């Protein structure tokens, strides 16, 4: 296999597996004779995607917007919180259990409270997306900082660096691989957050669209909504992956990332 062939295969792989999934999905529908009302076939879903494309574009735009704002907040706040609890063990002890407990609560239960404060629509969705996705970021950043090798820390300490400098010069860079791992989880959760908030209280967004679809037995439209969210999630992740390649390439410097065994 030449290097060029290998490159083509690499580029084609995600598409191949996506196509594979669609085929399996269609086959499952056929073989198990699953009623369309429960699980739409890919063909039907595609039809719905085309038929309702206007509504889908509009609602997808709304969901993407709320998700991105919520996710942006989650990055800022998650990083800050992660740094704080990663760098200060006492803070971690104080806040850790609260955060874990808070996170075990389904966020959908909190949407009504948010609606009370902020009304129906975009704001609760943004906040839900934020609430659901900041935690993985904070946890991973904290782990990255807490596992900072004392030897690297000493490099800065020996210069008499302040805590802030240590954080900035070694804590955060060291935590970058952790941070980017968390983004994969957080971006998907952010979509989940805004979509469930839209199902609870909104006149817009993919969540709203899915609710309408399911209540009027338009299962293909429901699945079109799911597909749209999935695609948006992947697109957003691709952006994050790009950032990762620029900011944390040093961490995956193995020959080409994988494990290589002997004989």
């Amino acid at each position, binding site marked *: 296999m030449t290097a060029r062939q290998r490159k083509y295969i690499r580029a084609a792989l995600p598409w191949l597996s996506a196509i594979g999934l669609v085929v399996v999905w269609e086959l499952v529908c056929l073989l198990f004779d699953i009623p369309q009302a429960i699980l739409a076939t890919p063909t039907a879903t595609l039809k719905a995607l085309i038929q309702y494309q206007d509504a889908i574009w509009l609602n997808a735009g709304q969901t993407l917007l709320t998700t991105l704002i919520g996710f942006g907040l989650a990055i800022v706040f998650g990083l800050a919180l992660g740094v704080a609890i990663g760098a200060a063990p006492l803070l971690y002890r104080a806040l850790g259990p609260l955060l874990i407990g808070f996170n075990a609560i389904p966020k959908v239960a909190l949407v009504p409270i948010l609606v009370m404060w902020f009304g129906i629509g975009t704001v609760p969705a943004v906040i839900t997306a934020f609430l659901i996705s900041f935690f993985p970021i904070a946890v991973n950043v904290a782990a990255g900082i807490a596992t900072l090798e004392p*030897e690297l820390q*000493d490099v800065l*300490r*020996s210069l*008499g*660096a302040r805590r802030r400098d240590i954080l900035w010069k070694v804590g955060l860079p060291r935590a970058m691989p952790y941070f980017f791992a968390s983004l994969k989880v957080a971006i998907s959760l952010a979509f989940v957050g805004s979509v469930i908030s839209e199902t609870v209280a909104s006149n817009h967004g993919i969540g709203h669209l899915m609710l309408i679809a399911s209540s009027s037995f338009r299962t293909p439209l429901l699945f079109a909504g799911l597909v749209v969210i999935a695609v948006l999630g992947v697109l957003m992740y691709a952006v994050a992956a790009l950032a990762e390649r620029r900011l944390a390439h*040093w961490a995956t*410097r193995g020959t080409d990332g994988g494990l290589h065994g002997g004989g």
Partner: protein
Amino acid sequence: MSSDFIRIDKASLTYGEEGGVLALQDIDLTLKQGEFLAVVGPSGCGKSTLLKLISGLRPPTGGSVTVSGQTVTGPLKIVGMAFQNPTLLPWRTALENVLLPLEVVDPHRRRFRADRRTYENKARKLLGTVGLTGFEDHYPWQLSGGMQQRVSLCRALIHEPALLMLDEPFGALDTFTREELWEALQALWLERRFTTLLVTHDLQEAAMLADRIIVISHRPGRISAECPVSFPRPRALDLRFAPDFNALLHDVRAKIDVARQVPLSGGAA
């Protein structure tokens, strides 16, 4: 000002809880400003620990450490340190690693953004003196062991610290490179007269560079001997062939032998 820049009083250091490894015991040591001290002793005797103690990276578990009149309670701000392992930051290139102290230490940090170009040139020049021109933009893992060590040395020097601590800085270098760097370091020291602590296993190196050599004994580390080195400066490499130079080496060697006490095969904690 030139008296007792560093004063260590009956300092001890135990790693871990009580009952842990007693690395240093009852260390008494004073250094004048601008003095060049070499520290030698068997492996594991506490040389690196001594540097950490003085630089404030580790607090003593007994006794006290004073640097320029102030008791050391935390890391000092006047130190340049080359650790035993190069410990370069893997996300920074060689040049960026060397620039690190300038981004952190006053007064450079304030000027750093404005004068980045100047500082970069300074760092490039310094990397050049240790033979690393052309490798400024390599990441640490793209450098050989000896190259990493040289980058680490540059990082200790770049911000012109008042107190320089070198932990076996030339250990991974071949004889020629090493000798060139001795000369470079000596020239720099003669120019700036920073107080220096040099940990080394190379007695020639110690005798070549230091004003005084202390020998630390096998665990628990104590200062078991002290030898002044009084050859005039600048010291040329030829000095190595002088009889009193070799006599000194012999003397120190004998003292280390005594300091080892416990033979290898029974070297328990």
